[in-house]
């Protein structure tokens, strides 16, 4: 009897092992669309189509509504559309874990485009491409295009940063130059937030002065260690040492904007917090100009957004593209703005009175004129520039030039 018990226990252990492994593997048994193959996927209709769509947690309500609308607009086919929560930031890594089991249509952040295309995970967008290009703002089409091919659908244009400020301390005129902002802060004992130790933010100084390119071998090419780059670094150091500048970023702005902080650089995700903190004194505009090498130079930034892609392993690519097209079209972008306040890329929606009245989105659009697409930025850029920014914040003891040389060497490694 004891032996039988021991054997049962041993098998249970094995079962537990197996169960652990099975449940640990993500999204097992997702519908891959086995009722339909591309060969028969042309126009006539009357088909049953299984689609798996990934979207972010906060956007689920919108996504479900969009799916209903899509089904209503296409009564000729039966669509079984399943959704799963995968945030835009995780889409690349989740998809590449097992592309075959991944979503047919998924939203992702624009900085993942190059890696996804490199991994052969995206369908080139060929259906209705002309219309997609003409109905969206050119910067947004640009971040979806790689080597002249449209690889994704622009969905949102709202990822970037600009200046939030307290109107009661800083006038609209002051907000135009960094020197005036810092002077006003020093006058009133308030502080200014500009997180130069975040590589994403540090870019505003180097990109205003230099260029960022990509070599044929896929390696990053930058010129941030020449005289212009050095001037940018020195201007950054001068700001950090101005007496008005403090460390920290989003959390500090959420906590202290209007209390001890008079202005700060951040993105649209902070808009609601800023409105709550500042009330009537809430204001936002493009980044100021800074004195770099004796001249007033407009600070630059990154422009980005969320894109929608079609999985290259999808068995129902045609339907996936039609759905993605619908999801990123004018009506749905208007709905996304209405439901979630998400900045549109569709020209008509962006021109609507409601969007124009949104202060943060207007500031974003204004800054977009001076912004770089994040598409061409390689992974090596972030660590090296972030490290340089950290060195600036910690106080550089040696010469900035040697640090810049090391930074550029690491970026181009």
């Amino acid at each position, binding site marked *: 009897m004891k032996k039988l018990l021991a054997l049962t226990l041993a098998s249970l252990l094995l079962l537990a092992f197996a169960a652990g492994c099975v449940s640990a593997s993500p999204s097992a048994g997702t519908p891959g669309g086995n009722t339909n193959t591309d060969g028969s996927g042309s126009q006539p209709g009357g088909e049953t189509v299984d689609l798996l769509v990934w979207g972010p947690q906060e956007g689920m309500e919108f996504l479900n509504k969009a799916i209903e609308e899509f089904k209503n607009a296409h009564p000729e086919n039966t669509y079984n559309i399943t959704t799963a929560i995968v945030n835009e930031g995780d889409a690349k890594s989740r998809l590449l874990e097992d592309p075959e089991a991944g979503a047919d249509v998924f939203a992702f952040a624009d900085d993942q485009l190059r890696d996804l295309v490199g991994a052969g995970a995206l369908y080139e967008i060929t259906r209705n491409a002309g219309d997609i290009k003409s109905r969206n703002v050119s910067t947004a089409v640009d971040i979806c295009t790689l080597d002249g091919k449209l690889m994704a659908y622009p969905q949102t244009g709202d990822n970037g940063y600009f200046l939030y400020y307290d109107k009661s301390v800083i006038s609209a005129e002051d907000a135009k130059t960094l020197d005036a902002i810092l002077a006003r802060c020093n006058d009133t004992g308030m502080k200014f937030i500009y997180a130069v130790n975040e590589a994403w933010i540090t870019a505003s100084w180097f990109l205003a002065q230099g260029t960022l390119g990509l070599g044929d071998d896929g390696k990053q090419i930058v010129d941030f260690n020449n005289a212009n780059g050095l001037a940018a670094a020195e201007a950054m150091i001068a700001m950090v040492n101005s007496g008005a500048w403090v460390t920290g970023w989003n959390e500090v702005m959420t906590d202290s904007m209007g209390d001890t902080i008079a202005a700060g650089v951040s993105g649209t995700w902070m808009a609601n917090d800023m409105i709550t903190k500042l009330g009537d004194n809430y204001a936002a505009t493009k980044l100021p100009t800074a004195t770099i090498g004796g001249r007033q130079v407009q600070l630059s930034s990154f422009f980005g957004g969320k894109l929608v892609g079609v999985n290259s392993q999808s068995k129902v690519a045609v339907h996936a593209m039609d759905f993605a097209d619908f999801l990123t079209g004018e009506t749905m972008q208007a709905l996304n703005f209405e439901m979630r306040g998400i900045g549109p890329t569709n020209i008509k929606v962006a021109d609507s009175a409601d969007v124009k009245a949104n202060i943060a989105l207007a500031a974003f659009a204004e800054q977009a004129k001076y912004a770089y697409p994040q598409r061409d930025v390689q992974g090596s850029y972030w660590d090296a520039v972030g490290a340089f920014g950290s060195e600036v914040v910690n106080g550089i003891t040696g010469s900035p030039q040697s*640090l810049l040389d090391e930074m550029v060497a*690491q970026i181009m490694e």
Partner: protein
Amino acid sequence: MGQSKAKVITGLNFAVMGAGCAARGQVAKGILLFAAQCSYICFMVFFGAGYLAGFRTLGVTEQTAAWNESLQINETIKGDNSMLILLFGILSLAVTALFIYLYIVNIRLGFKALQAEREGRRPPTFREDLRSLWNDKYHLVLLTLPAIGLLAFTVLPQIFMVCMAFTNFDKTHQPPGKLFTWVGFDNFKEIFWSNPRKSQTFLRILGWTLTWAVTATATCYFGGIALALLINKKGIRLKKMWRSFFVITIAVPQFVSLLLIRQFLNDNGTLNILLQNWGLIDQPIMFFRDYARQTVLFVNFWIGVPYTMLITTGILMNIPADLYESARMDGAGPFLTFRKITVPYMFFVTAPYLITQFVGNINNFNVIYLLTGGEPKSLDYYKAGKTDLLITWLYKQTVDEQDYKLASTLGIIIFIIIGAFSLLSFNLFAGGGKEENFQ
């Protein structure tokens, strides 16, 4: 007839598994062996052979796309998937190894049956075999299942991961679009000498990892003993209350305390604001910039001490009181008794604990990642920060950089370091220290 027939059967047994057994009356066993052979052949023909054939190159055809005019799309034409070839190639190799083992068993069984026949014995029947499995060979029955589980769910995935260290699998060689292939020891060369930026970073991080592990282990250990001694001291009142206080920190989940402390010590955190409001400092103290390493060590001390205190309290109470008494009679002071009795006794009992703590600290992901995330970043390091341990560096390489080859190589190196340390210290302390040697 006997001689030639035996030869035929032996020969047949080499080609058809189970023939030897079946011909000599062990029909069930013969059928089982033959079934194993058939299923292996099926497995190889329908599944394994393709993967094994591609195993040397890990795939040659890349995925491409072709224009489909009627659908208006650039249809994907799938190519080889290096990852699947590597994974199923390893699986096929393992199955093959298992099969070879079965094949040898088959020949041995055939030979045994032949011998039995020659000696005029009857080879054991299937029923007898089963019964012996339930009786004298019961260990086989019991341990086969767990062993299979271990092989399938632990050893095979490990081999898969280890293999990645010998390929160029990173984000520029990412399936399904791109192929990756074997590169031999190139990744190890890069870490150790051929890429100065990586090797310098590796050495710096290794140095800090070891410093951290030694300091963190020692501070927690001696801090815990000191605290336990203090509470155990005669004349200390409310012993239970003090002990409970410290145990409360264990009751709070570690990551919660770590995240709270991170907030507390931030540049604009509670502590800095309090100190500033009280007028004790003008500028915030940059715990996570200027003193990052000291800060993580201190926080780890604070989090780790209660555990050692709990463990050592029990042991301290177990040290025979007569040892202390006789020492006191011989005129030993409190420091001498601590040094000559308490420490050796504690050391003897807690050596395994100390070693696991040390190894655990080398891989102490939580404290570092949740407190500093490896920061402050520095240009002295390649894609790492000043408080990064090897394990957090590895994590960043995998998750942020998709540099799987480097991560896998690092994993192997960490394993070797830890393995060497554990073996060495177990031999020095735990294994070598016999109870008689103590005192």
